[in-house]
């Protein structure tokens, strides 16, 4: 597949804005996302929660929340297929462009509509249920605006290509190569610059979402409890912090060395007088 020869963006002239948006901003976003997550994980374990409001209202949540979350999982899978897997690979296994396109629109459309319907229902619930709205912070509201915008613009790119039919824009020749090129630090700016405005907008809002991610309640996604599938049911832990978390299994012997293991606590002068004499 000679992507570079037929690349639609080959003739596009790059502006300074293109360089900043598609060459610099993605890396800034990654730094903010990862740095923010590390910072928050270290300093705000107590605030790292789903902040569930099911206690206040359950009827709508029971429909809207799974709709949104499962829709979102499908959307993420769709993004993986569209952005990470090169067009050459799907063609190599005999998947025609039309077939791929139909699948992307059909499955992607359902997932997108489900996600959007879910979040709209969640926002409606949040606004109309008194206690839930009272528990909504300004931080939450900002997050909802960005999240909804990302979903709406994403759905727009999908639906737009439906109305344009088979002649719609093939993002697998613009956005996807640019996305993959970011990982090898050779951003293909021209490819991205050639993509239509709707894709630009969706990408920018998406980057904004990832940048605010560590500072909102969305962080709970990064502690999705997959290890629940593998951990023992009963968890034993010592109150003696020196021993760390001896989870399950035989307890470690008592009277471990009395050295404080916690961050930020100097061991100097903390030795107990009585332990020296034993």
């Amino acid at each position, binding site marked *: 597949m000679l992507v570079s020869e037929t690349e639609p963006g080959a003739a596009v002239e790059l502006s300074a804005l293109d360089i900043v948006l598609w060459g610099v901003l993605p890396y800034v976003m990654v730094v903010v996302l990862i740095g923010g997550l590390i910072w928050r994980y270290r300093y705000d374990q107590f605030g790292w929660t789903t*902040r569930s409001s*099911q206690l206040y209202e359950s009827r709508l949540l029971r429909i809207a929340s799974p709709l949104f979350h499962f829709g979102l999982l499908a959307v993420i899978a769709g993004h993986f297929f569209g952005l990470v897997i090169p067009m050459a690979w799907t063609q190599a296994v005999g998947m025609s462009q039309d077939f791929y396109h139909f699948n992307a629109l059909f499955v992607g459309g359902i997932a997108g509509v489900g996600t959007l319907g879910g979040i709209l229902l969640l926002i409606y619930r949040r606004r109309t249920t008194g206690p839930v709205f009272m528990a909504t912070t300004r931080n939450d509201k900002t997050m909802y605006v960005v999240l909804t915008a990302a979903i709406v613009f994403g759905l727009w790119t999908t639906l737009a290509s439906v109305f344009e039919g088979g002649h719609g824009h093939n993002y697998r020749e613009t956005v996807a190569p640019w996305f993959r090129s970011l990982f090898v630090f050779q951003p293909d700016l021209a490819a991205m610059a050639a993509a239509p405005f709707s894709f630009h907008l969706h990408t920018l809002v998406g980057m904004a979402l990832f940048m605010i991610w560590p500072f909102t309640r969305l962080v709970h996604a990064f502690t999705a409890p997959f290890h629940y599938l593998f951990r023992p049911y009963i968890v034993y832990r010592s109150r003696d912090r020196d021993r760390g978390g001896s989870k399950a299994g035989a307890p470690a012997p008592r009277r471990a060395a009395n050295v404080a293991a916690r961050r930020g606590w100097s061991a100097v002068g*903390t030795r107990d007088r009585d332990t020296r004499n034993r």
Partner: protein
Amino acid sequence: MRVMAQMGMVMNLDKCIGCHTCSVTCKQAWTNRAGTEYVWFNNVETRPGQGYPRRYEDQDKWQGGWVLNKRGKLVLKAGGRVKKLFGIFASPVQPELKDYYEPWTYDYKTLVDAPLGDDFPVARPKSLITGKDTKITWSANWDDDLGGSTEHGHLDPIVEKVRRESEDKIKFAYEQTFMFYLPRICEHCLNPSCMASCPSGAIYKRVEDGIVLVDQDKCRGWRQCVTGCPYKKIYFNHKTGKAEKCTFCYPRVEVGLPTVCSETCVGRLRYLGLFLYDADAVTAAASVTDPRELYDAQMDVLLDPNDPAVQAEARAQGIPADWIDAARRSPVYALAKVYKVALPLHPEYRTMPMVWYVPPLSPVVDLLRDQGHDGEDSGNLFGAIDALRIPVEYLAELFTAGDADRVTAVLKKLAAMRSFMRGISLGNDPDDSIPESVGMDSQTMYEMYRLMAIAKYEERYVIPKAHVEQAHDLEEMGCSLDFEGGPGMQDSAPFGEASGRPVPVAVETFNALRDRQTSDAAPGETTLRGRVNLLNWDGTGAPAGLFPEKAAFPEKALLPEKRPAPSGRGTPAEGERL
């Protein structure tokens, strides 16, 4: 055999007067914060009654605890790991606030601020959730003292079950025949289903004393533990988004003090002490096929602390000598396994609960007395226990998975103790036939009487302290120094309220606590030292210290130096009298 120590509690239900002091002091100590308004780590239920949250014992609905699957393997009733993860986006079985109650306060300010008018100002109830006017329809003890039992009594899941099994022979008469109080805290189970339900692994059992705690840093608010606990003793703090539960007052227990609920219990009905148990045997014991054998299986897990082999193994596992000694003197072990009068609450949930109950004999005694019989005669009592099938069956559903014989045996022991000791109190020779009729000897029965009726403080609470080599951690010095922002983080944290580091629990150190508890004066009130306690003063004479020393109030100093006489009446003589 893996010997582990477990703090346990026994409550003697005969002594509970339903005063709710335990609930109130517990709430003041632990859950008087925003987000925990509806949370009662300790609550007192009137039985028969729905309990708190309402009908929590209906596991067909709430899906708490463990069950055996077709292959006889222990599984969570609410489903396995994969099912739980798929249901994580909206917890499928979750009590809502209406199943607890909507907490409220009153608009007291109106009482003071209302303008003059024809009507008396009223303090309206305001919801603590929405802040708006609310109508109070339920609370944590709404059906206290059988309040509204004709309306609500049949809603008790246990009543439903007993009725179903006895083919509707029970009529509404039961409401008048018996009633008792059931104080409940977290059971600190050996096989906790809340812990097994936690996707984050944030709930843990402490190796040293078996207290079950929620790591507030690791909890992510998935709320599966609320579903998992059949006793519904894990609560969701709706402000912090974290699960919270009874802590067995671990900061107090670690320094040898009883829990707040025990310490403040007016009826002195709670006992605290250690169990030694075989951690390797727990799963097998909880997997016994017949639910009625779970009690025996649980008893087998508890090890005899006087057995030299157990002691040797305990030492090998690193349990300190003073802890082993405390286990030997443990009142909870004595009541549960030696005298066998304490029973676990709902063993059929297969969680191996470690808070035990001495079932109440008082409904039987009261009934006998009301009918004009001698309520302390062993023959009368034994007959009544056998005849009063309904209370016994009800108790059996609570404590022995429906095995009425077991409850009868316990009640007969209590009845025997009552009439045996009455004989002694009346100056008769001890009637050894009474203890023998319930399979005990006189000496053991007398010891049981000492523990249950005299119930000295030191015998009720045998709490080994955590060791001095861990003292620094217990005072949370390490913790108090390394959290950013300090205690005022609730409002100032960047991610809304309750983000940031939690305030350490034991802000008060052991020494400060001891000083405060052993001093006569209120904290900081050193100037009051040496004053007479008026409660001890019989009114004769004026003991030293009754009045403040004169030197402390120089009379002249009270008067302005040169006060102009207002109207010529302010003579120096008047001033002197002041």
